[in-house]
């Protein structure tokens, strides 16, 4: 099997073994739910980043969705990888919580700095006038 499909499929096949399962299943289920919620938030951020018409609206989508989805996904992985309640796994959970706290502090800060830089660059938000102009140009 390993020689036929290569390492990637070997990893996939080995995950279906019941023996390789380890971890506390309540924490794993909570972690998987958090990860999927984070993916949904990141989907919103990606769609907003592509479809919104204006720099500030795009920044709104990216800043909020990015921060919350990163925190949710990292927390979910921290819970999923909590195998036993030994010292090492507690240390790992504390480290992941440190990353989450760091991102909780820094991601809005960098969004704010970038927004301030764009505002001082006279990057104008989209107004009703611009919408009317674009409609006129479409009608012509």
């Amino acid at each position, binding site marked *: 099997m390993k020689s036929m499909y290569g390492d990637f499929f070997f990893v996939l096949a080995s995950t279906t073994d019941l023996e390789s399962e380890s*971890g506390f299943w309540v924490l794993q289920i909570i972690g998987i739910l958090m990860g999927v919620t984070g*993916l949904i938030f990141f989907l919103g951020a990606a769609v907003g980043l592509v479809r919104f018409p204006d720099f500030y609206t795009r*920044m709104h989508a990216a800043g909020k969705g990015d921060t919350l989805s*990163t925190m949710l996904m990292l927390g979910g992985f921290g819970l999923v*990888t909590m195998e036993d309640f030994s010292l090492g796994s507690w240390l*790992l959970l504390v480290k992941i919580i440190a*990353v989450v706290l760091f991102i909780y502090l820094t991601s809005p800060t960098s969004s704010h700095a970038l927004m301030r830089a764009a505002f*001082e660059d006279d990057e104008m938000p989209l107004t009703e006038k611009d919408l009317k102009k674009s409609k006129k140009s479409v009608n012509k």
Partner: protein
Amino acid sequence: MTHLFAITMGAALFTLMIPVVYRIWVGPTGFDRILGVNVIGTKTAVLLVIIGTLFDRVEMFVDFAIAYALLNFVGAIVISRYLNRTISLNEMDAREKKGGAK
């Protein structure tokens, strides 16, 4: 179970990064591009933890994730300050031109 979850999450994250790359590619202003790079950098920290789960070395890769998040934050701050500074120089030029027109 954990490995399957990690592979699925990694693939989904990688797929969802493609629209962000689109925004970096066509972004009308430079700020859009920096925003996209910032989003991808933050998500790379998550991807590093996922890769660590796949290799069963999470405790090592979490440190990489911390370092990557720190570098991403410092890069975003520095780039926005830099643009701010150059832009105020541009503004100074524009003001000088206005004064000349008067």
